[in-house]
């Protein structure tokens, strides 16, 4: 009834090619953005620093993984490694360059991760599919090993951890969870918008062509070398920025093993559950994988309290989490993004279905 496009005419190419052609979508996204900005005024620090910040950051990383895996079709397992590059690059940039603004340091650490990503993306020209996943696994192990091996990266800290410096921009220290949230939100919003535009522009079409059939793409004049490495670079850039934010806005004290293979797998699951090849799916998938275990833990502790052995409930949480994932993949293998899309399609017809 409300979500209909009747009466909305597009009279120019610009109108036809805008991100949200439907007026309702534009209004919705504006409300969402305003709500996101205003959120710190109504929530407490727990929500900001334990839920929203890690969710936004991991969404960004999932977005990076989605560019590579969902759009360009290159199965990769090294995203946590690239996050580590971003985190440690950001630490070193701020440490070694006097007065560098945080945003610049984050952008540069993304560039560092992109360079590393290009190097590890080179095998993708020769190998595909699962074999590529195994090859990118090497990047994961190599990066964490290198960060552990060479103490220079950690400024010779005896325990091998780095303590993220305060986030300083324009002479202001963004110390409170609220301010950190805004910084993260701004960076994630800009990068998500960029990703959306890349995905629906010629760049994204190139990726999708390579994904669907690389021989055909090459015949049509796409350079496989350029397209694949571009996907690796951009994906690693997103992971690197995400890693820097993960360290600086969330964990604060980081050791390389925080970016282990576990995290890579979790990011992979986020993308699969969220929906391959969608921007929205990255956010939904990250939310699910990150928040579902927390929600189950809170749920069990509030419902059963101390009447049931916590060891049993902790184990049950994992069982249920696994069961939900399996069920979800059976009923909706295309992920949350598909569910969202179907909901929108139904809304267009509601309440008068065919």
């Amino acid at each position, binding site marked *: 009834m409300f979500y209909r496009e009747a009466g909305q005419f597009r009279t120019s190419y610009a109108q036809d090619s805008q991100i949200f052609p439907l007026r309702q979508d534009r209004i919705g996204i504006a409300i969402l953005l305003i709500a996101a900005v205003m959120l710190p005024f109504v929530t407490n620090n*727990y929500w900001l620093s334990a839920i929203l910040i890690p969710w936004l950051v991991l969404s960004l990383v999932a977005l990076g993984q989605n560019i590579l895996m969902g759009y360009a079709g290159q199965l990769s397992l090294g995203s946590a490694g690239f996050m580590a590059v971003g985190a440690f690059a950001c630490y070193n940039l701020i440490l070694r360059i006097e007065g560098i603004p945080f945003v610049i340091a984050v952008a540069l650490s993304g560039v560092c991760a992109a360079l590393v990503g290009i190097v590890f993306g080179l095998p993708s020209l020769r190998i595909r599919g699962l074999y590529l996943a195994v090859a990118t696994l090497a990047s994961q192990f190599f990066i964490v090993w290198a960060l552990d091996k060479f103490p220079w990266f950690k400024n010779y800290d005896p*325990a091998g951890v780095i303590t993220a410096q305060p986030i300083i921009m324009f002479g202001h220290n963004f110390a409170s969870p609220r301010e950190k949230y805004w910084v993260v939100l701004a960076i994630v919003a800009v990068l998500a918008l960029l990703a959306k535009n890349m995905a629906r522009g010629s760049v994204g079409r190139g990726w999708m062509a390579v994904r669907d059939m690389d021989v055909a793409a090459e015949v049509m004049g796409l350079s496989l070398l350029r397209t694949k490495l571009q996907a690796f670079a951009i994906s690693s850039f997103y992971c690197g920025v995400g890693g820097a934010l993960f360290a600086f806005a969330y964990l*604060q*004290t980081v*050791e390389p093993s925080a970016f282990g293979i576990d995290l890579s797998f979790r990011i992979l699951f986020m993308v699969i559950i969220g929906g391959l090849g969608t921007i929205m799916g990255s956010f939904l998938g990250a939310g699910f994988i990150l928040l579902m275990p927390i*929600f189950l833990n809170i749920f069990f502790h509030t419902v059963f309290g101390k009447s049931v052995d916590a*060891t049993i409930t902790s184990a049950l*949480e994992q069982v249920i989490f696994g069961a939900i994932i399996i069920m979800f993949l059976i*009923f909706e293998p295309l992920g949350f993004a598909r*569910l969202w899309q179907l909901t929108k399609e139904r809304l267009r017809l509601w309440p008068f279905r065919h």
Partner: protein
Amino acid sequence: MMRDTILRRAMPGIFALAAAFAVGGASSTAMAQEQEQYFGIPSSRVGPYSAMGTGYYGGIIDYLNYVNMKFGGVNGVKLTYDECETEYNAARTVECYQRLLNKGDQKMVVFDTLGTPGAYAVIGRMATDNVVLAQYGYGRTDAADGRVWPWVFNAAGHYWGQIAVKMNFMAQKEGGVDKMKGKTIVHLHIDTAYGREPIPAMREIAKEWGVKLIEIAVPPPGLEQQSQWLQIRREKADWVTFWGAGSGMNSTAITTAARVGFPREKMMYVTFGGAEEDMIPAGDAAKGTYVAANAAPGKFPLIQDIEKVVYGAGKGNMQNPQRVGTVYYNRGVGAAVMWVEALKNAQRIHNKTGKTVTGPEFRDGYEALDITDDKLKEIGILGMSAPFKMSCAKHDGSERFRMMQWDGTKFVLLTDWVPAPNPAFIRKLIEDSAEKYAKENNLPVRQCS
């Protein structure tokens, strides 16, 4: 198509329910009619480190309940707690820390992650949030310098003191420090900050003694150590100090050592890898392994009383009551004893006897801990925990450990509490490291005395 539709129809409902519970859970408020002191318990009950988590946090919870049941709380203040599952994961620990921080109008006063990764992840938040980080025998060592780290404590010893005690024990076995010259020690450790923690102190001592120190890292989770043990064999190591985590890794080390023929009587386990749960899976191969203990296993009078009062009433937290009195359990009880003693101190110092104390008050109480032999005897844990005294500058508790050896079925305590041979030396290392950290991070250095 039918079932798809059903699921899709149900989805909004499921999400709404989920959101409702999440909101309800996060903002659940407790009505405090009587005076209560709230503790946050970030337990780790699943995953590779579950043996540690269930024993340790079970011990803590049992002791809190014991104090409530036996004495009606601390001067009438009931002890309450909330649990949160961290899965021994740094990111989840941060989430748990934030979740546990406030409960209704009460605020958490002490946090104990039972794990170096978790401790490192929250250590920077303590000063701003006014919460005490009680690292009971783990965590960041240079936090023992109270001038730089007013909110962090290292009761029950730290890893630098522990490695010094161990190396001293080796020297004793070899017949004196002068006999150590030319010997080879392998530090076999899990490749994390926790595994590397003792290395700075170890290097210094090795240099002084003329010992060849070889550091070999095992990538987590450390279930495959064949190549590392072959290397140990090749290097003809005289001793191995093993710094593992999780019973899988710890028992694997023993079985692999047995396979390559390295004598278990030359292996020294870290406090967090040396418990019954780590030895039993390795079977007979574990016999002879040395372990350092900051909380000795055994049925000490307090433990017996907990069995009687708490388990007798069917309120025990351990799923398997047989584990009461084991290493991890006793360590948890020891940690909780310090909380309660600190709470008593805080109430006394701030004239709040019978009232809830705040974070800063609890911190003062923890810093005023003076655990003497008499005190330990009164509590009923003489011999289980070492006596110690904290001060403004000195935030490490006892630097003493007991050495024990696995006889195939249980631990045999070999020594009484052994101090580090040269405490001033370790102290110097701690202060240097803390000062370096304070300088790098522009932290204020407190004036003590």
